[in-house]
């Protein structure tokens, strides 16, 4: 009998296993037949109201306090509807009985609030008013309690509260911004003005009463506009579409994130705890780096369970290649720079995922994590759908009229349509709107894999149905311990998606707040289980124009007990419950909470203290010309500096340093004083060569006179030849540098690196000068130089006799010398772009390229290499900094990035055609617009964007032409370390994910925690890259702790916190203390003193 039962049970559960996570329920069963039906009219359509296709929201909350979550759907044009949850995933439409009657005008978003703290949730509805014929005000439906049938009755009374705003509202969020115990309101509005020009960023500081956002303070039940004194931007440039509230910096005061469409920045308002906010994106574009450009919905939650809230914001980057190639793109780099200079922060067309690093610094890692491209997206929900303790991602998307289709813009929108629009549309013209391309797309699910990555599980978790989906919410509609989903659709029935659950555990938490904040909005919980630490906040405005219930749902994975669950109330009161079994529904009551506790402080002693710059030097780049000269390249090669070299040049026992200037900027020598300050030395000496872009230099004793001389090389892809490409030797005579006129006269090299080492053990220093490209010819291999010292400072080009194979090894970016094989002779490790990591072993006579060492197929965009013994096994391992994994580029041996150099258009000059793989198809990187400017013949065969998008590489450029091109490839983009087995074999290991978030430009290996193993300090970032790739700015100084068994962990709070495009990290002793100088491109250097 028991056996039978077990078998039976197994049959059921096995069957259940094959089910998808979500099942879409039929409206026949749920009785939810709501359709956000749009009916274009001459008065109101996409041509005269720009957000006609943006969709509407949905509110999930228990309006009749029966512990079942009810649903309130917004209709843009059709009436809103209220559905009461009858249990068992069935609902009943009660709009009329509830006396809700929002049937006019244009409605957008809604949220819930207990405005009169009677324990009943009210509804605040956002509308467009004061626009054309639309004259409504926002609505506040106040819950009067239930009638005899259990139906809540509502009465509209926005005016009594001062909330009958009439303007262009998008969405609202109630929260206690000043922690005075009542709920204030942030009302996000949207501009409706055509965005013909991007204008000045400063226009955000002006006030537009209809489209500007408004912060209302709740003053005894009256909502008073305090936007101006609170520092809220209220300009007409704000196209607010996404709104989230969260305590981003864990200081107890809620902060606000506003996603703005079009040109305007997003806003991250940090609460200053004094009634005002500071908007940090416009103040400092390093903190978040870049944001979404065409920002739609956003959400904030802790995706990596580190107790810090992370931000996702949605944009419209197509995942589908054909859609991408037929859609409008960002401006090209030069014009984009112009736009930034008008007062904007960098924004790119992609979803962004800002991982919170603490101290209000964020790493944007959407590409790295796999959530960057989800088509024309509206609502983002971060929630644990599979109850494994990690927040997953749901994205709603699709649009009824995709107005960025390039073929439509250029070719399809015919004269007929244009003239009708000019003359004013009539009913008869409405079908013309039908010609606008529709983008009906499936919604996306991403499962959180941990380690900062997500997998697209759309097909695993749900049936892939296409739709125009907008507002979305999660809620446990059937109280079965998992989160169900509700999605409001344009022109289609709303989706109610039942979560089919799994064997993971969960718990839910409700709040009973103090008097004026009855639902505990803003309460934060921290739950600890065996394997998890989960942090969550009770803010309800979420999911684009929508609101979720004021209930926390926590997935617990296999853990069945919560060891402790702490609630931090907005008042600062804290209470904790211990040993809670999974499956429970817990209610926390603020009245029983203990009095205020101090929030815990991390008592980690950081390794570094940051000093204000000790010198007045600011590296200053001229605007990058690479994209003017070679519009097809993916990134510039003219932002290589500064380099920093450290030496004691006056033999006074103190470290001095030399820092290189960019084109048209003096390099500078700084002499350290006894007190650790630096003074500029021999300034006149470097004036003469200010023109040069100095890229690398080395202090070494060229002539054996015991004084350290200086060799400077220049490059930076700025000059084609002549003086600015000649190496310069400065001979040190008793602490004074004198330019030498004899050496290196015959060399002109676009140099990337200079190195001095005694290769032949003859007691003098020989020189290696590396070069990364022929100027102005992207990817073309340039020549490398080995120059042998005759002992008295005369250098001979002996490349051919000593290291013949290095001469055209590739586009070298970095070279180090070290004795890898312990034979007493210095070997070379060479890294660069479009080339493999290469080792040259020195046998005392020659240096020969090492073969069969495991580094054969490692072509990357390598910028730097460092050798150290990671695993304490007695040999040197190599740590190599690469491009990273945080762009749309992926590369492998099977699917490489390829550079084809050929004269495709037969005009006597070669074009660099760069391709990459998107899924399984190889496709050109440069946009059609850029390609046809270079090769107009492409328009003969592929004039329409669609033809171009569909064409294979061979169809576009010809099989023969491609075959005959000079080819280079990239098969590895990850930054890695190569483990040396001591016998000359290297095995690749990827650095942790966070180290892949940006290109690495320099690495320092040092044992920071005195455990005998080298830890790593990592710097990088690159701002001068194609706008199709965005801006790589995720590093803010990264410290990797050696885990002592051959790997690394990301260290927290190491004090190594530096932002910017960093090029070099150099050790120096300052006033007797070990320190680092950090060289930043186009910025001032930073000094870090090591705490001892």
């Amino acid at each position, binding site marked *: 009998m028991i056996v039978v039962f077990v078998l039976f049970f197994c049959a059921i559960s096995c069957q259940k296993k094959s089910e998808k996570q979500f099942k879409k329920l039929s409206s026949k069963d749920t009785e939810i037949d709501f359709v956000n039906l749009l009916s274009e009219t001459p008065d109101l359509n996409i041509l005269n109201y720009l957000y006609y296709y943006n969709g509407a929201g949905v509110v999930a909350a228990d309006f009749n306090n029966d512990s079942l979550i009810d649903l309130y759907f917004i209709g843009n044009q059709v009436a809103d509807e209220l559905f009461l949850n009858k249990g068992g995933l069935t609902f009943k439409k009660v709009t009329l009985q509830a006396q809700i009657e929002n049937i006019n005008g244009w409605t957008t978003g809604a949220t819930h609030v207990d405005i009169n703290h009677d324990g009943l949730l009210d509804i605040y509805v956002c509308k467009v008013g004061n626009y054309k014929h639309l004259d409504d005000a926002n609505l506040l439906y106040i819950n009067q309690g239930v009638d005899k049938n259990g139906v809540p009755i509502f009465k509209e009374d926005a005016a009594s509260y001062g909330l009958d705003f009439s303007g262009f509202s998008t969405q609202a969020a109630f929260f206690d911004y000043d922690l005075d115990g009542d709920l204030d309101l942030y009302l996000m509005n949207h501009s409706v003005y055509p965005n*013909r020009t991007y204008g000045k960023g400063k226009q955000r500081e002006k006030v537009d009463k209809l489209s500007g956002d408004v912060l209302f303070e709740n003053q005894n039940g009256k909502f008073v506009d305090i936007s101006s004194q609170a520092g809220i931007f209220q300009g007409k440039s704000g196209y607010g579409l996404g709104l989230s509230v969260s305590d981003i910096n864990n200081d107890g005061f809620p902060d606000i994130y506003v996603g703005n469409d079009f040109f305007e920045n997003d806003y991250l308002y940090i609460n200053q705890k004094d009634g005002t906010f500071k908007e940090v994106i416009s103040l400092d574009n390093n903190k978040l780096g870049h944001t979404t450009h065409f920002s739609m919905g956003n959400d904030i939650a802790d995706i990596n369970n580190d107790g810090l809230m992370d931000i996702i914001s949605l944009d419209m980057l197509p995942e589908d290649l054909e859609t991408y190639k037929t859609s409008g793109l960002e401006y090209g780099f030069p014009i984009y720079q112009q736009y930034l200079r008008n007062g904007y922060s960098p924004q790119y067309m992609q979803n962004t995922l800002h991982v919170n690093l603490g101290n209000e610094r964020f790493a944007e890692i959407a590409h790295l994590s796999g959530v960057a491209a989800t088509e024309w997206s509206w609502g983002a929900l971060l929630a644990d759908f599979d109850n494994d303790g990690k927040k997953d991602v749901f994205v709603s998307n699709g649009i009824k009229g995709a107005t960025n289709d390039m073929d439509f813009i250029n070719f399809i929108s015919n004269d007929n349509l244009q003239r009708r629009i000019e003359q004013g549309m009539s009913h008869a013209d409405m079908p013309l709107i039908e010609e606008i391309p529709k983008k009906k797309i499936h919604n996306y699910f991403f499962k959180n894999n941990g380690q900062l990555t997500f997998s697209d599980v759309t097909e695993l978790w749900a049936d892939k149905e296409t739709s125009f989906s907008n507002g979305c919410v999660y809620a446990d509609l059937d109280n079965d311990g998992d989160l169900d989903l509700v999605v409001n659709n344009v022109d289609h029935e709303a989706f109610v998606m039942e979560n089919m659950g799994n064997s993971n555990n969960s718990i839910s938490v409700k709040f009973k707040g103090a008097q004026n904040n009855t639902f505990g909005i803003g309460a934060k919980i921290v739950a600890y289980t065996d394997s998890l630490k989960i942090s969550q906040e009770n803010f309800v405005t979420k999911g684009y124009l929508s609101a979720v219930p004021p209930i926390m749902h926590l997935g617990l994975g296999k853990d069945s007990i919560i060891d402790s669950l702490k609630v931090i109330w907005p008042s600062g009161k804290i209470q904790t419950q211990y040993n809670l079994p999974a499956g429970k529904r817990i209610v926390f009551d603020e009245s029983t909470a203990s009095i205020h506790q101090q929030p815990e402080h991390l008592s980690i002693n950081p390794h570094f203290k940051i000093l204000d710059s000790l010198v007045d030097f600011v590296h200053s780049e001229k605007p990058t010309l690479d994209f003017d000269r070679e519009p097809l390249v993916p990134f510039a090669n003219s932002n290589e500096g500064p380099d920093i070299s450290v030496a004691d040049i006056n033999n006074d026992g103190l470290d001095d340093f030399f820092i290189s200037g960019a084109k048209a900027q003096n390099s500078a020598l700084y002499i350290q004083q006894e007190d650790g300050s630096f003074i500029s030395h021999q300034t006149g000496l470097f004036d003469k060569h200010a023109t040069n872009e100095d890229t690398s230099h080395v202090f070494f004793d060229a002539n054996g006179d015991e004084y350290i001389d200086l060799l400077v090389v220049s490059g930076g892809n700025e000059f084609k030849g002549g003086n600015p490409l000649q190496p310069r030797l400065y001979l040190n005579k008793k602490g004074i540098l004198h330019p030498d006129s004899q050496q290196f006269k015959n060399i002109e090299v676009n140099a990337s690196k200079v190195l001095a080492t005694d290769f032949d053990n003859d007691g003098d220093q020989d020189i290696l000068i590396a070069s990364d490209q022929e100027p102005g010819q992207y990817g073309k291999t340039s020549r490398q130089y080995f120059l042998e010292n005759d002992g008295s400072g005369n250098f001979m080009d002996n490349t051919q006799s000593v290291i013949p194979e290095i001469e055209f090894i590739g586009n070298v970016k970095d070279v180090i010398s070290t004795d890898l094989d312990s034979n007493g002779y210095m070997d070379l490790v060479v890294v660069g772009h479009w080339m493999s990591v290469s080792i040259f072993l020195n046998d005392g006579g020659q240096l020969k390229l090492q073969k069969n060492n495991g580094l054969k197929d490692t072509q990357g965009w390598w910028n730097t290499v460092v050798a150290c013994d990671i695993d304490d096994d007695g040999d040197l391992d190599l740590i190599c900094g690469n491009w990273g994994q945080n762009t749309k580029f992926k590369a492998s041996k099977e699917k490489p990035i390829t550079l084809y150099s050929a004269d495709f258009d037969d005009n006597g000059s070669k074009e660099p055609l760069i391709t990459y793989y998107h899924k399984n198809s190889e496709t050109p990187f440069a946009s059609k617009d850029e390609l046809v400017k270079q090769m107009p013949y492409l328009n003969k065969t592929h004039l329409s964007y669609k033809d171009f998008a569909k064409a294979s590489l061979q169809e576009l450029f010809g099989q023969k032409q491609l075959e005959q091109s000079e080819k280079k490839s990239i098969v590895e983009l990850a930054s890695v370390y190569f483990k040396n087995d001591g016998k000359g074999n290297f095995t690749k290991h990827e650095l942790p994910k966070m180290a892949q978030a940006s290109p690495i430009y320099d690495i320092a290996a040092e044992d920071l925690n005195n455990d005998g193993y080298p830890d790593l300090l990592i710097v990088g970032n690159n701002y001068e890259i194609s706008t199709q790739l965005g801006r790589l700015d995720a590093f803010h100084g990264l410290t990797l702790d050696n885990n002592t068994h051959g790997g690394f962990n990301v260290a927290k709070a190491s004090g190594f916190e530096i932002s910017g495009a960093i090029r070099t990290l150099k050790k120096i002793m300052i006033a007797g203390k070990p320190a680092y100088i950090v060289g930043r491109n186009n910025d001032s250097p930073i000094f870090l003193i090591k705490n001892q």
Partner: protein
Amino acid sequence: MKKKLGILLLTALALFSCAKKQEPIVISPEDYHGSVDKVTEVMIHDIFSPPVASRIYAYPNVAAYEILALKGDGYNSLQGQVTDLPQIPEPENRENVNFDLAALIAHIDMNKRLIFSEDRIEAYRDSLYGIWEEMNAPEFEASKAFGLKVAGHIAAWMDKDNYKQTRTMPKFTVDSDEPSRWQPTPPAYMDGIEPHWSKIRPFVIDSAAQFKPAPPPPFSMEEDSDFYKEVKEVYDISNEITSKGDESEEIEIAQFWDCNPYVSVTRGHLMFATKKITPGAHWIGITKIASRKTDSDLAKTIYAYTKTSIAIADAFISCWDEKYRSNLIRPETLINEHIDDSWEPVLQTPPFPEYTSGHSVVSGAAATALTSIFGDNFAFDDDTEIPYGLPVRSFKSFAAAADEAAISRMYGGIHYRAAVEIGVNQGRSLGKFVVDHLDMN
């Protein structure tokens, strides 16, 4: 069964046509206008910038004209008069060739080479080929062979005009630190168009810089400077005429001569491009009007198109040479920055530097060429813009039309006074040089 019937029908047709008498093929001026109109239409669809469009007009006309000159109707070959133009080959068998037909075929073939949407020209060509084939197959085949051969020769010459090489030359460098320097303008913020057009081989003028105009007033935003006064004048005129409303004469003039091949429009959330003919195309249209009004025969028609399109092409080279020499900022940028941040010009600012006004230079040159062909005080009704929803305007002479085209750019808010006044004179001097140096009949 059906198939069989088809074959039978075909056979019957073939028999019929064989039996039919061969008629001589006559090419009328209207046939040539048709081919010019066709290439204009395709250019609008494909979107070519004004300088590139001028090149597309010139070469096919030269090809047709050279065939005509070979025919010997009193027109002289341009070989020796136009830079590096080689002698075109003689037909193999002169008697079999209908030169008029060959000229038109060469014109069509050159058009096809120059535009993108070849299928559109092919469809047009094939329908004509079908008619000619039927009318007189031997004559057609011989003329076609010759026409295409000449087109090949002209194309080989054309390919050496540096057009391809200029494609890979650097873009215009945007540098807003230099306050007088041109910057991309709203709403599309396009790159500066054709920064290296001065390196294109000219037809008649010695070099791109031969008609280098005097520089514009020195840049200064001091209120008493000449330059500032010109900026302010654009703003004031614009305000004055817009206050009068869309029906004002000045706005009508501005719109009539807009001739912008790509105007980016946003309505609500919808973006699209309004596409019109270029300034060169407008004057090609006037050439058609004048040819028709004078009942010009085919030879004179081709002559008129050729001379005018050469003058226009050289005018663009000369004008673009100056544009990217002075690199002057547009009124829209300065007015938004210094006077009124919400001001919009009546016309959309085209994407290249301000000085001198392209339409002014081209109009000056084209009007001079046309005057040399059709005489001064040639009054005409200009209906060129009707397909683009604009009215007919009447002019008492080509020169008067050119003056109006020039001043229209100020009304449009896209040029300062110096650019139009100096520009139209630059065009006239260039036009005179072209007219004086071409000995065509």
